[in-house]
């Protein structure tokens, strides 16, 4: 999306903004790697522990649900290539973490990568944004129903819009195969371990999907227009620490500079604040001067 820079002072030019952002897009995202692989290992362990009666199915369900809520973000960094950072020799890291982290949610990594790139290029565009079905929900209840149903039908329509893009089409087709493998594994498991599959995979994945859709797709973009600097907002919640929402209050900066690592976003926002205000990013005036471990609670 093109944006009008004619009224922006030279000191807040796009080039200068990019220069500042670049400083925060260098570090290796080891925390994300740890969370991505870690939650997948914990989730796999719950199967072993529950099946062998070391922990109850209920405890397993709680653990699996927490894992499902933690599963998307590490893969999201992989979708943007933020582990390899352009180094072809390290690209396997993106692929590995992308696939492993999404096991819990049963999402196919290639489809997530392909559709997420289209989401960035077309944020809030009803005809082109794969996430628009969630963004257009009127309230969290509608998001819940949408995620319960799954996006299959909506994805078919958006797929038709983007299928002329070869790169997208290739990734999407590969993702469909991965999805079939995942679905087949689930159908085999449910015959052997019915309740375990229901409580350690199916339900946690629904909970994780709802959590992810609400915090990543709905709240940061809901009610906003199309356009860089306009399609995502900064916000604060009453009494909710930002860690409980994966710091998605800061998601807008990811849309401006996707290669900034997730845990480097607070520092980047502090330095970018004047640029964000000059550009009129929704909510930019409310950004605190310092974002440390401040949970961004509005009191």
């Amino acid at each position: 999306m093109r944006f009008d820079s004619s009224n922006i002072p030279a000191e807040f030019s796009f080039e200068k903004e990019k220069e500042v952002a670049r400083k925060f897009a260098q570090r290796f995202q080891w925390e994300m790697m740890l969370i991505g692989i870690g939650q997948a290992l914990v989730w796999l362990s719950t199967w072993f522990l529950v099946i062998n009666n070391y922990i109850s199915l209920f405890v397993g369900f709680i653990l699996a649900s927490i894992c499902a809520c933690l599963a998307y973000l590490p893969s999201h960094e992989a979708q943007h290539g933020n582990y390899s950072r352009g180094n072809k020799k390290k690209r396997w890291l993106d692929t590995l973490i992308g696939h492993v982290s999404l096991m819990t949610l049963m999402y196919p990594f290639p489809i997530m990568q392909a559709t997420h790139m289209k989401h960035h290029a077309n944020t809030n565009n009803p005809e082109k944004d794969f996430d628009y079905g969630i963004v257009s929900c009127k309230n969290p209840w509608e998001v819940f129903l949408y995620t319960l149903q799954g996006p299959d039908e909506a994805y078919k329509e958006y797929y038709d819009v983007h299928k002329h893009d070869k790169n997208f089409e290739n990734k999407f087709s590969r993702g469909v195969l991965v999805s079939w493998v995942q679905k087949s594994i689930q159908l085999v498991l449910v015959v052997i371990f019915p309740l375990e599959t229901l409580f350690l995979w199916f339900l946690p994945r629904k909970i994780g999907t709802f959590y992810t859709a609400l915090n990543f797709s709905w709240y940061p973009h809901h009610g906003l227009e199309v356009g860089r600097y306009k399609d995502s907002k900064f916000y604060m919640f009453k009494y909710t620490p930002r860690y409980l929402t994966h710091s998605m209050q800061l998601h807008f900066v990811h849309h401006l500079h996707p290669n900034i690592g997730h845990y480097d976003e607070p520092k980047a926002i502090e330095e970018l604040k004047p640029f964000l205000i000059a550009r009129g990013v929704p909510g930019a005036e409310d950004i605190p001067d310092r974002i440390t471990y401040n949970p961004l609670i509005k009191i």
Partner: protein
Amino acid sequence: MKALVESLSDHIENWGMVWFGLIFLGSIFNEFSLFNALNISLLNINLFPYLLGLIFGLVAKYRGTWI
């Protein structure tokens, strides 16, 4: 190979909900004794829960939605 993948894709697109109902929901229902009230057995498998799952899947297919 491409033709096989395409026909598989068409089948899953058209009948995925029915298979999910039969296998997934059927297996879950089978675990709950409530659904075993009607005993129609074949090879020692109670068919009633699977039949129920299949019906859910067929209804979802013809409605085009689970909810």
